[in-house]
């Protein structure tokens, strides 16, 4: 939903509430009672819903994730000039949207995956202020191949890749998450924040 529409809902709600506040006498009539109900119950719920939706959408943005100081090295790792660095390679080659880079890989592509991601995000905020976390950060659960396969499944480079098909069991193990894409020695150069001072950086946009 465009932001102007969210503001329009807020302003209309405030104006209607203003009518009820400034002229409460209107609530004597049946129409006035309905107006008050709409102004003080229906419209505020709609306004909160559109505001919530706006915040949820914005929380997918890369800049939102990187607004926490703790995430700064992870943002830097997206600009490493080395194609073996998985997040950098995805970010720089637009395999993930630039403005939703973190969310695209770190959400769960399952039912309620987005809600669970947001819930984890709230826990991150709590942890930021009360648990004093320090990098390197660790995932709550091992990274699931499902998130990689959400995009790569069916892609030619994945399905016909030489290494993926070197043994018939490899492909089956990747698809069933028995063999991790990230920790089985194939694509293990991920954010790697401890080596950020030893690498070159891509200066493109």
């Amino acid at each position, binding site marked *: 939903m465009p932001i102007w529409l969210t*503001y329009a809902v807020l302003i209309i*709600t*405030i104006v209607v*509430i203003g009518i009820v*506040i400034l002229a409460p006498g209107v609530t004597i009539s049946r129409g006035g009672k309905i107006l008050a109900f709409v*102004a*003080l119950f229906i419209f505020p719920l709609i*306004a909160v819903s559109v505001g919530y939706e706006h915040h949820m959408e914005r929380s997918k943005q890369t800049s939102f994730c990187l607004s926490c100081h703790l995430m700064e090295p992870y943002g830097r790792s997206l600009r490493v000039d080395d194609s073996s660095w998985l997040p950098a390679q995805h970010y720089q080659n637009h395999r993930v949207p630039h403005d939703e880079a973190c969310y695209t890989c770190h959400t769960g592509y399952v039912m309620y995956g987005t809600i669970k991601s947001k819930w984890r995000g709230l826990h991150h905020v709590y942890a930021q202020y009360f648990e004093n976390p320090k990098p390197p950060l660790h995932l709550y659960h091992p990274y699931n191949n499902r998130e990689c396969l959400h995009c790569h499944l069916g892609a030619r480079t994945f399905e016909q890749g030489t290494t993926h098909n070197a043994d018939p069991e490899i492909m089956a193990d990747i698809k069933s998450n028995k063999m991790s894409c990230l920790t089985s020695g194939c694509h293990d150069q991920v954010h790697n924040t401890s080596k950020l001072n030893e690498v070159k950086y891509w200066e493109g946009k």
Partner: protein
Amino acid sequence: MKFALSQRLRAAGALIVIGLVIEGWTLHWNSPIGFLVFLGIGGLFIACGIIIYLLALIALPAGRDPVTPNQ
């Protein structure tokens, strides 16, 4: 202390308006704190306003003039 419906409507409306203004303020706040302020402070004001309004509705005796204070 009893309040007329009009006073409760004003209180409810004022709380909701404050909550909506806070919500509008956080819409351009691109950080997790903005979301927390939206939900924790703005949402709290709006929820309180709605509850006061709903309580005012159920607390009003039948047949009573809704806008005359302290009858």
